[in-house]
């Protein structure tokens, strides 16, 4: 399984957080907001502006610069209904 940056995911993709390579404060804040290792997230929106991710059904907007530093592992099952 490949680890990719959150910013590379598309709307509807689901993924698991692997690691966060941002500054200490930002990393801690992301952790506290639920984006910690192994957390399951789904991408609600990623076209312009912050990436919008759902963590347990709660919407968290993450600035693009920071989203780039969130490394995730894509969960495959969503492949088939990506084109909806």
């Amino acid at each position, binding site marked *: 399984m490949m680890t990719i940056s959150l910013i590379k995911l598309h709307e509807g993709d689901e993924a698991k957080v692997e690691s966060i390579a941002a500054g200490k404060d*930002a990393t801690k*804040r992301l952790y506290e907001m639920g984006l910690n290792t192994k957390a399951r997230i789904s991408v609600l929106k990623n076209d312009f*502006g912050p990436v919008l991710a*759902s963590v347990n059904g709660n*919407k968290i907007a993450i*600035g693009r610069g920071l989203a780039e530093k969130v490394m995730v592992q894509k969960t495959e099952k969503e492949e088939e209904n990506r084109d909806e």
Partner: protein
Amino acid sequence: MSNHKIALVGNPNSGKTTLFNAFTGSNQHVGNWPGVTVEKKEGILKYKNKEYDIIDLPGIYSLGAFSEDEIVAMDYVLSNDADVIINIIDSCNIERNLYLTTQLLEMSKNVVLVLNMCDEAQKREIKIDTAALSARLGIPVVTAVAYKGEGIEDIVEAVIKVIDDKKSYDNPVVYNENVLHHIEHIEEILEGCTLPYPTRWTAIKIVEGDNHVLEMIDECGLNEETIKQIKDFHKFHNKDSFELEVVDSRYSFANNVARDVVIRPEKEVKTITDKIDKFLINKYLGIPIFAAIMFIVFQTTFIVGEEIFGGLAADLVEGFGGILEGFLVLVNSPDWLVSLVADGLIGGVGAVIEFVPLITVLYLMLGFLEDSGYMSRAAYVWDNLMRKFGLHGKAFISMIIGFGCNVPGIMSTRTMENKKDRMISMLINPFMSCGAKIPIYVVFIAAFFPNHGALVLFTLYGFGILVGLIMAKVFNNTLFKGESSYFIMELPPYRMPTIKNVLRNMWTNVYDFIARAGTIIFTVVTLMWVLAVLPTSADPYSKESFLGMIGSFLVPLFKPAGFGTWQESVALFAGIPAKEAVVGTLGMLYAGEYMEEGKILVDVIRQHFTHLTALSYMLMVLLYTPCAAVLGTIGRETKSIKWVIFTALYTFLIAWIVAVAVFQIGSLLGFS
């Protein structure tokens, strides 16, 4: 004996202030976005003939704080002042909210857990076993829907029971072995030391590398050997990795608990929020929709506040003024008193009071926006554009709040993690046109642009944003270099604003407006009146009066911007204590001209200004030195008089340049 203290602690936007209002009957500002409360607030709960002190705190995600508002909350929790902590949790968001709970439990605090917004959890088919949750955490758990007032009494009963039981709670958090080993090691080092906090908790915080606790260790008189051992531990271990390991331990504990007590539906229930967001934060529609919303706000404010109810208010003020004046003449009051009341009070303060309907509608609409959940969306759609100017989306929230009043606008920057972002946001906030400036615009709009009121207001506000952003860019490249901070923000679900909240927010603002008219505006206008009728050798309201002299002195400064009379210049001067005083002063100074001829202020304005000078005057008002309250807030928040002076001067300079440029270029192009 003093009252028991009960503190409200929880994640941002979990409903602390709503609960606070329900407990204490207060009218604190609430809204549906993270970061509404930025200060500690206290109130009293009366229950069964007993009183309890309730402390409302800004929202926090953890006890490790980044921003000013979080530090306020964290310091209070750490101070051990509270007898019981009510930990409010958003029922839809248990995993994340429990993280903070684990930290409170680590401190062996007396905690009552409140599962708030149960109705929303129900809608999303999230089921929570409260009894099991209570057993796992070892603390009482109560369910509530704070905004409907459901569960309030249960919470109070649970709190009282905790106070009466006087038992302390164990920390149920399980740490991973590696971390646990180090925690125990530090615990051994600390054994026998007198610490302000529980030893175990202190040890955890040291392993975590918490700055607050490390500083405290230096200050609480431990022997040098202990301090050295702790410092060595730090040097030896890479504390960053421990920090995240401790966080991870808490999180996996919280997750385990949640997994056992929460049942989520197989597939997330699509809520109305998802559907609305498809449009409101759409790539192409986001900013146009924002603009449309603001335009609708101004249009409605104008139609309802000015055209429908504005005349009514004016008639009331004038009618009342006429009766009062008649009465004073009837009882043979001295001339000076009649003049003070007729010109100063009715002409001045009355001119401000006439705008109450307008302000009411404006604050109703802004309150509606705040309560709906749109604020974080506005931050979201603006983030991209804001970055081009060196800020990020969160800064935009402080700007919208500034539309109501710059004081809370500046206060709301407390939620920003990065000092540079915060400073810039504070310095540009005065360009966000506030409610107090609206009376000035409306008088000029009525005189010169009566058919395009909303458009002119919209353009002025938009221009304020533009100037603010340009200045942000300038500050970014000069005074405050460096990276802008990261942007993380929750987008809460949309909620139908409750009438109670919207009315409450409106009323606090309108009350404030009226109170200001009766206090500071009254004082300023009276002072101006005194200056306008003295010395007795000069004709009242003439150029030879003291006020006339001040105005004449200022005229050369404003002449290049097109407003050449001393009255217009001195009115701007009067606007420094409070912006409404500009209209108040103009009203008072021109009262002699219009009242006798049965005219209104607008008619006189029309005689003294042209379309072009009206425009440059409005721009001047939009941008120039903010009122004393705003300057005071900047002083308090930056803890420096230097920034107060800087703000006062640079805003004036920008305003002057813009007003002069508009007038000069406009004149050259042949406008008038």
